[in-house]
């Protein structure tokens, strides 16, 4: 279940990274794997065990991913922040509409 969610998040965020930056595909999918592998498992655990508030957890993820996106995609902080909001907003809405069984 977590694996399915992680895979879907990686694919969705990869598409958004590409749509936003139009950089080469292989590095972008690699960055999406790394970024989401770092943020999604702890975020899920934090949501289940510490902070059962989706908005708070998503805000934390947006901040962390802003830093990672900026570092890896080498884009300015403001654009990284915007991309992080866009990516996490999209995946959050996707997850709420299509909860994996």
């Amino acid at each position: 279940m977590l694996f399915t969610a992680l895979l879907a998040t990686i694919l969705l965020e990869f598409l958004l990274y590409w749509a936003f930056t139009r950089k080469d595909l292989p590095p972008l999918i690699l960055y999406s794997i790394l970024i989401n592998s770092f943020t999604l498992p702890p975020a899920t655990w934090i949501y289940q065990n510490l902070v059962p508030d989706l908005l708070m957890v998503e805000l934390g993820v947006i901040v962390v991913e802003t830093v990672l996106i900026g570092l890896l995609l080498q884009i300015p902080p403001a654009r990284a922040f915007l991309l992080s909001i866009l990516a996490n907003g999209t995946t959050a809405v996707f997850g709420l509409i299509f909860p994996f069984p």
Partner: protein
Amino acid sequence: MPGRTVILLLLIGLVIAPAAADVIPPGQKTVSSCFEIGNTGEYPDYLFIAFPLSMSGGYAVMKPGDCVSFYKFASPSIYAVKRDAFNETAAGEGGQISSNYFSSDPGVIPSGIAIRGSATVAESSPVKSISTIYTITSVNSTRLGIIPARERYTYTDGRTEEKTLLPVETTVAPSGMDPLAPVLTIVAGSAIALIVGMRVRKR
């Protein structure tokens, strides 16, 4: 590009291998599950509330005969609140409620139990759904005692069967490490190590 492709495949394997442990085991299937409290009527002064039921924090006031389902990642707990102390209007019946209410309101009595999500059975099993029936054993101003007492199985042919669970002294939320925590730590740790490694190499 072959070097990059190899790294990519290794990374995918790194993610898939541990995370695959969370996938339904071969030969098993997921069946719908829910939980209810069988003896809320014995405590008429209290309301028993399950929270959170969804990613956005939904809750349900448990009523006799109501079997409550929840989103698989939610892992709700059950709380008791004095009937006259619960401001249902402010909270919004069936709607959203702040997690701060359950963690900091002095009128909320925690049980400490953590109800886990979907149930799996053998692929060939005729079980269609499983209801877990909890029994309240005690309520005082600081602690709600509650245990899973029975399971009711509904079969594909419409029959139902109820079985008593083995007696347990207490059921408590995992205070130590979550069983999934080592896997999550490895996945997240590997990812951040690789990110840092890539940044260092670029410099």
